[in-house]
């Protein structure tokens, strides 16, 4: 029986008790259903158990030797390789991925580009007040969940941050105010109490709300009587009162805000609002936690930033990082690549159809542990272990705290970790 962290989502709960004989997992106690499903993945039907190579039109089982040979051949013939994914692998594997991109003079990007990566980038100008989950547990008195269905994407987030009592007092839920801002009434609304504020905002109008809040912050009394973005005047005033009066307020920014690609400025405005309130506030402060889905999406930003000085979308040339505004999306759109390495993600089902079609046209090397839509078009498939269960590694929690993932069962025979696989590709490429 061991206590280990769960790698089911970016909360990386470190209180999961697992009973195992080292081969099978008998019992998982404390993890939510999403976490349990991650543990079940070990013996899942859709697990990939051998390397595969496409021969004519079919994927055929192969040996590791053959698979690596094919990979090396594809990479030798490629001038503009694309590396993508890396949000469900350990930091060690992410580092290897960057090393490979550098060696190949390729372009590397993580899922973070279309999610929280740009926020961290923007923070260089606006500043960003971060906080940790422990702060939320012990000290928070205001929690704002903006554009995220936390009850579904991070099932235990409310349990930990909203209902916990913390070290310094015996009351928990009673003194924490919850505000949910979302266009749809999600399952998260189910935890609302009488003092909480539920704001059903008109879709896509978040920016108007933020602008009004900023305005009101500088110039009290300026809210229009009919309210804004579908939220009435009274609720707005209550929200502002909480924002400016909270001793320890935390805004959880979710996919709903992060994914609004067209309106890049939403996040900027929000960060500016937070800084404005913090400057004015005497006693308390408002901080921000970004909610990413994959368990180690944040890791890539940290690894890339600390090793190469840029947190996402890195283009290498002559074994050096060069400046570019390209992202994975623009690269694929312009078909500016001739081969791709996809690690631990399923772009064919996540990306818009016209992009996934373009991606499918060029040779594709897949490193993953479960069968996905991407597998169906891959030319080489390299199966990997499940990090956090079958191999260890470092991952960054959503509040930027590094958590060490553990190994509790042995992987199926002949299966290596993402890190080892990427290392092998590097070694084999250098040889020839």
């Amino acid at each position, binding site marked *: 029986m061991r206590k280990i962290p769960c790698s089911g989502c970016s909360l990386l709960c470190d209180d999961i008790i697992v009973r195992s004989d080292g081969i099978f997992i008998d019992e998982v*106690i404390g993890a*939510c259903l999403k976490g349990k499903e991650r543990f079940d993945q070990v013996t899942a039907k859709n697990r990939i158990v051998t390397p595969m190579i496409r021969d004519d039109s079919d994927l055929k089982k192969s040996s590791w030797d053959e698979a690596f040979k094919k990979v090396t051949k594809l990479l030798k013939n490629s001038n503009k390789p694309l590396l993508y994914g890396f949000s469900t692998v350990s930091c060690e594997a992410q580092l290897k991925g960057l090393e490979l991109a550098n060696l190949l003079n390729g372009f590397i990007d993580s899922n973070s580009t279309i999610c929280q990566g740009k926020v961290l980038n923007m923070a260089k100008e606006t500043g960003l007040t971060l906080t940790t989950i422990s702060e939320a547990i012990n000290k928070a008195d205001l929690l704002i969940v903006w554009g995220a269905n936390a009850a579904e994407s991070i099932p235990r987030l409310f349990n930990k941050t909203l*209902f916990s009592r913390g070290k310094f007092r015996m009351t928990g839920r009673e003194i924490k105010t919850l505000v949910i801002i979302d266009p749809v009434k999600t399952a998260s609304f*189910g935890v609302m109490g009488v003092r909480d504020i539920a704001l059903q905002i008109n879709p896509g109008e978040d920016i108007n709300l933020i602008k009004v809040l900023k305005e009101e912050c500088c110039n009290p009394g300026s809210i229009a009587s009919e309210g804004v973005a579908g939220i009435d005047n009274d609720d707005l005033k209550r929200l502002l009162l909480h924002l400016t009066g909270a001793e320890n307020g935390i805004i959880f920014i979710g996919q709903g805000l992060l994914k609004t690609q067209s309106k890049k400025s939403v996040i900027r405005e929000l960060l500016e609002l937070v800084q404005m309130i913090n400057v004015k506030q005497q006693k308390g402060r408002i901080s921000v936690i970004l909610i990413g889905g994959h368990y180690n999406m944040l890791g890539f930003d940290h690894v890339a930033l600390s090793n190469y000085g840029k947190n996402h979308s890195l283009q290498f040339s002559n074994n050096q990082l060069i400046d570019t505004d390209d992202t994975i999306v623009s690269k694929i759109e312009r078909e500016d690549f001739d081969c791709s390495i996809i690690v631990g993600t399923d772009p064919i089902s996540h990306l818009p159809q016209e992009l996934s079609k373009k991606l499918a046209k060029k040779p594709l090397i897949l490193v993953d542990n479960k069968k996905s839509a991407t597998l169906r078009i891959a030319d080489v498939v390299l199966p990997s272990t499940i990090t956090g269960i079958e191999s260890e590694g470092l991952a960054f929690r959503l509040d930027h705290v590094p958590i060490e993932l553990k190994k509790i069962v042995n992987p199926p025979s002949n299966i290596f970790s993402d890190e080892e696989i990427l290392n092998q590709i590097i070694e084999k490429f250098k040889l020839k």
Partner: protein
Amino acid sequence: MELYKYLPKTNCKECGKPTCMAFALDLLQGKVKVDDCTPLLEPKYKKQYETLKELLGAEEGIIKELKINVDTDLCDGCGICVTVCPVNARYCPPTLSGKAPDYPPEKHQLFQVKGGKCELLNLEHCRRLESEGRERECRVCETYCPREAVKIEYV
């Protein structure tokens, strides 16, 4: 608290209970009868008296048992019930920080999440059975479950 609504709500203690709320709870469990609340027999409460009689029907006075049902189809193991239950909070310190309690469970522990689903362990320690006064009216597990998977019933 459907039944409470129709009581005089004066907390006069005539029935021997400290509050009307406590009386309502016992009424629900079949431990007392509507007629035990003597003020209710006064003419001005006639309507309420009749409604109560109707609501309880033939079930009046039949002793019922507390049941807490967890619908495992709805539950997603978020652990909120584990954290909010005051009995867990008292006997399982990790729940104070929203963490899963230690394993094997403490003998008072009421809920645990196992295999991604909530499990009820020791109903006999629920405040509805063990406590006195206001604490007996505890209902937080049912109130805060985001999936409405917890139901407190008397059958």
